[in-house]
């Protein structure tokens, strides 16, 4: 059974000029323990996709289609049931850890709170143990002491580790990471990407990684969906996308990426009016 199975997902916003699809007829598949990359530029609908999977799309939006997690349909599920799924079976990590953490509480308290919300009846002492173990799992040294620190006492990279620790505290089957390293320095980014890889290997957690960075997805995911203007224009195994891209947009995007290893005479620009036809090759 697929860990995540998305079918015909559409997110529509009402606008003065009529309804606008931010995401249109999107299909996604993720096997247990797999890593799926969703890449696209701004406005491609990639972030809206990650929110809509969890039912977190803005109130004004209408979501249709089907999102199945381990066979369980999430679309149409009651808010109370959804809340039990979120943070427990599926966890999310966002771009900016500082705005996702409450500056008034220690990171330990915040991890404990997230954990207790999904494990009614656990004692404070047990929750504290989980929080310390979670910080250790993301390689934060001296976790027993750091658990009592406030978010501002951590660097940007360390804060993102705290967010990942919190996300993993309930041992979810699926981690959705939306641009988790975009705000970080390149050396810190490398550490966080390594960490995500290690965690996948150790725990078998499935990963959906949303990013604009083609090099990042090429390093840590095994399947890729390329989005533009709300639709999937191409999907495939990572090697296939990077060696034999079929869609002109994917080809143009790959041509436009600056390479660190060589200077390209003329970076090829992506034609603005490039026609986008949804990829109907079926799910990955």
């Amino acid at each position, binding site marked *: 059974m697929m860990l995540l199975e998305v079918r015909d997902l559409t997110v529509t916003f009402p606008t003065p000029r009529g309804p606008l699809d931010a995401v249109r007829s999107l299909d996604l598949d993720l096997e247990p323990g797999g890593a799926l990359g969703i890449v696209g530029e701004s406005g491609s609908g990639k972030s809206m996709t990650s929110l809509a999977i969890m039912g977190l799309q803005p109130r004004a939006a209408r979501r249709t289609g089907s999102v199945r997690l381990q066979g369980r349909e999430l679309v149409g599920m009651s808010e109370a049931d959804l809340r039990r799924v979120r943070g427990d079976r599926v966890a999310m990590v966002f771009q900016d850890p500082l705005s996702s953490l409450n500056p008034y509480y220690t990171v330990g308290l915040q991890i404990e709170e997230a954990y207790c919300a999904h494990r009614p009846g656990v004692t404070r002492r047990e929750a504290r143990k989980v929080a310390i173990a979670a910080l250790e799992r993301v390689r934060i040294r001296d976790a027993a002491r750091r658990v009592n620190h406030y978010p501002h006492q951590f660097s940007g990279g360390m804060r993102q580790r705290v967010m990942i620790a919190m996300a993993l505290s309930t041992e979810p089957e699926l981690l959705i990471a939306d641009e988790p390293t975009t705000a970080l*320095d390149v*050396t810190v*980014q490398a550490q966080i990407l390594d960490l995500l890889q290690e965690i996948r290997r150790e725990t078998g957690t499935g990963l959906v990684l949303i990013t604009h960075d083609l090099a990042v997805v090429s390093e840590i995911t095994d399947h890729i969906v390329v989005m533009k203007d709300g639709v999937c224009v191409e999907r495939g195994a990572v090697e296939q996308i*990077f060696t034999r891209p079929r869609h002109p947009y994917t080809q143009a995007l*790959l041509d436009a990426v*600056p390479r*660190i290893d060589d200077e390209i005479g003329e970076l090829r*620009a992506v034609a603005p009016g490039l026609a986008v036809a949804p990829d109907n090759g079926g799910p990955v």
Partner: protein
Amino acid sequence: MSEPLLRATHLVKEFPIMGTGGLLRRPATFRAVDDVSFEIRAGETLALVGESGSGKSTTARLAARLLDVTSGTVELDGEDVTALKRSELNRFRSEVQVVFQDPYSSLNPRHTVERIVTAPLVYQQRTIPGGPRAFTRSLMERVGLDPDHSQKYPAQFSGGQAQRIGIARALAVGPRVVVCDEAVSALDVSVQAQVINLLRDLQREEGLTYLFIAHDLAVVRQIATRVAVMTQGRIVEEGDRDSVFGAPRHEYTRTLLDAVPRIRPEWERQRRANAGRS
């Protein structure tokens, strides 16, 4: 060897730390730039690279005289410009201009393109050659914008187009040096490629000199002649682009280069081969 066009010597910048110091006690200071020296020859691009907090942007601001140095000197074409006063700064500002990272926040949202790009000349009380309308049209053409949009506002342009307005404004006074402070960092990859191409074309055609501040090493590889690597307020390595990228000498440079995510070169080769066949 020709004389360098822009030269910075032993630049130091210290900022007071908030909350320290008192009535009679001087506040403690943080040294953001610590003895930085560099030279840029006319028509070349020096890239200052580093991570956040390395002091690269502060260094750029000192070189552009947007900040006053704590000590050290900035020379333009052999002339010491470190202590220029207001009226003399106008002359400096017509030689050295800056393009900032976020086009929307560095362009006045209530002003038309025409007003934005002619503003530097107006401030300097210079006459606008050919009148504002014609001048704006020719500038817009130079940076690849539709000259018919000269009466539009920044919000009516996409990010890449807005950055072109920022470049047009910098070019308005006819500078010899343009300081690009993360000028392409906020742009989508497809748009970024276009703006990099534009900067390279302008350099080739008009002989511009760039001080290019960036954290993205792959972008720097596309545009730099020379590269200086900064960390903790100091330049730890400087050299020709290909030697810094190809044979980095300093440990920190190697760490930085190793950390950059890469698409596997063999995939890249295969893709080019496949693209050539189809």
